[in-house]
């Protein structure tokens, strides 16, 4: 097994860990009185977490001064792996809502999207993930060239929409929201040209 394979598997391992945890909770009856609500909230949180961790790879690579060859080969694949896991959890999140909350009724879905802004924003974020997933392979990357980078930068917007979705659904207690928002803010600040120039280090 090559080092590249090991880091890949490690990425997948991290990605499935929350799912294993949720399966264990389901099997051992740890989901509480309202299991559907718990699963909806958990899958939503893990989707957001995976998006943020995926977003943290590039700045981490820059700051930790990895050898360039090493990081391109071993760490950059994590962006894709975790991005795909974010989509995996977002899909579970959406399906649980569609099946159990809406009884698979697309009329209810339309009513929710139309009447409830936080659901509209979450739904748009989910839809915007689809083209990224579809173009997450080497072939698409090559075919799209420079446009691929532009396309995949929409993930910045997607994360922001997910945060808005989160913010708008909170009734009163914003305490855990601010941690996610702060993480996103830091990760975006690291991407500003000013910041990177200020802390420029040789790679």
């Amino acid at each position, binding site marked *: 097994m090559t080092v590249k394979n090991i880091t890949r598997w490690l990425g997948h391992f991290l990605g499935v860990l929350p799912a294993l945890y949720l399966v264990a909770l389901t099997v051992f009856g740890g989901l509480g*009185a*309202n299991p559907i609500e718990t699963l909806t909230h958990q899958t939503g949180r893990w989707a957001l977490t995976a998006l943020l961790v995926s977003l943290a790879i590039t700045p981490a690579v820059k700051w930790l001064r990895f050898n360039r060859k090493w990081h391109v080969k071993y760490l950059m694949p994590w962006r894709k792996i975790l991005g795909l896991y974010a989509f995996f959890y977002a899909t579970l999140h959406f399906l649980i809502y569609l099946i159990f909350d809406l009884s698979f009724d697309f009329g209810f879905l339309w009513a929710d999207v139309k009447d409830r802004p936080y659901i509209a924003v979450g739904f748009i974020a989910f839809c915007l993930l689809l083209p990224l997933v579809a173009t997450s392979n080497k072939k698409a990357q090559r075919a799209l060239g420079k446009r691929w980078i532009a396309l995949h930068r929409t993930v910045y917007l997607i994360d922001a929409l997910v945060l808005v979705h989160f913010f708008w659904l909170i009734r*009163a207690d914003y305490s855990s929201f601010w941690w996610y928002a702060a993480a996103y803010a830091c990760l975006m600040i690291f991407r500003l040209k000013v910041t990177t120039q200020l802390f420029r280090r040789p790679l």
Partner: protein
Amino acid sequence: MVKSFIPTLCESEVTSEATYLKRRHFLSAGVAGALGVAAMPSFAASTPFEQKAAAAKTTYKVDEKLNSFEDITQYNNFYELGTAKTDPYKNADKLKTDPWSIEVGGLCAKPGKYHLEDILQPHTFEERIYRLRCVEAWSMVVPWLGFSLASLLKRFEPSSDAKYVAFHTLYDEGRPLPGQNRPVIRWPYREGLRIDEAMNPLSFMAVGLYGKTLPNQNGAPIRLVVPWKYGFKSIKSIVKIEFVKEQPKTSWNTLQSSEYGFYSNVNPKVNHPRWSQARERRIGELFKRETLMFNGYQEQVAHLYKNMDLTRFI
């Protein structure tokens, strides 16, 4: 040791399988105790609360499956004890309910500070099995123990100017409850009813559930239950009752009036910006079911809102 078994003595008529089994447990414990334990006499003489709980008759019930004691006591919205659904259960011991008094004031002939014992003393207890519908689109069926709100309020002889009743939950600034350390909502929690709503026979003061003393996380020692309104109207751990002329300020309404109206009657037809109120999830079920107008209590309460546009007075 003995104390923990006592509540099963005061079962009312409705007995779930679990409490039935616990009762058997109690009986065997009692036999063991009778074989020469000095503490026995103290349990033989039950308190007035226990006697009244034991004598309680079921005066109102819906023919639906009761939610389990565990579900009712481990899935709560009681922000004073924390904002997560399981927080109130975890922090329940932080709420001290003894001694407890209620300050009664405003437009009535008999204002004053009443000890809980004096509040409870003249009332016989009844059991009422009500649906509880939360604005978050989940619901339960709960066997409450208590007495009608009207029978309590009448004792204070409200004047004809008293158009509303306001309630406050416990808030001791010197010793806040765990959830009150942060201004998630403005403390103390406040709720209110129009006087005719308060005097409606369905409005209930609960002091227990499943025939036992009300657990702290459910709003001990005394709470309101207004089954045709969203759950947040049913204020917990009441320390103040005030008769007022103007519509009182209420907590969720103050925080976000577009979402939480003063009336907050369960209404599947009023479009809520956050949760569709057309359907609800009964705790214990996976899929949602249709929500009933006034939570199914239309017959008893619809007349209260005869000439009101319920899409405007949410």
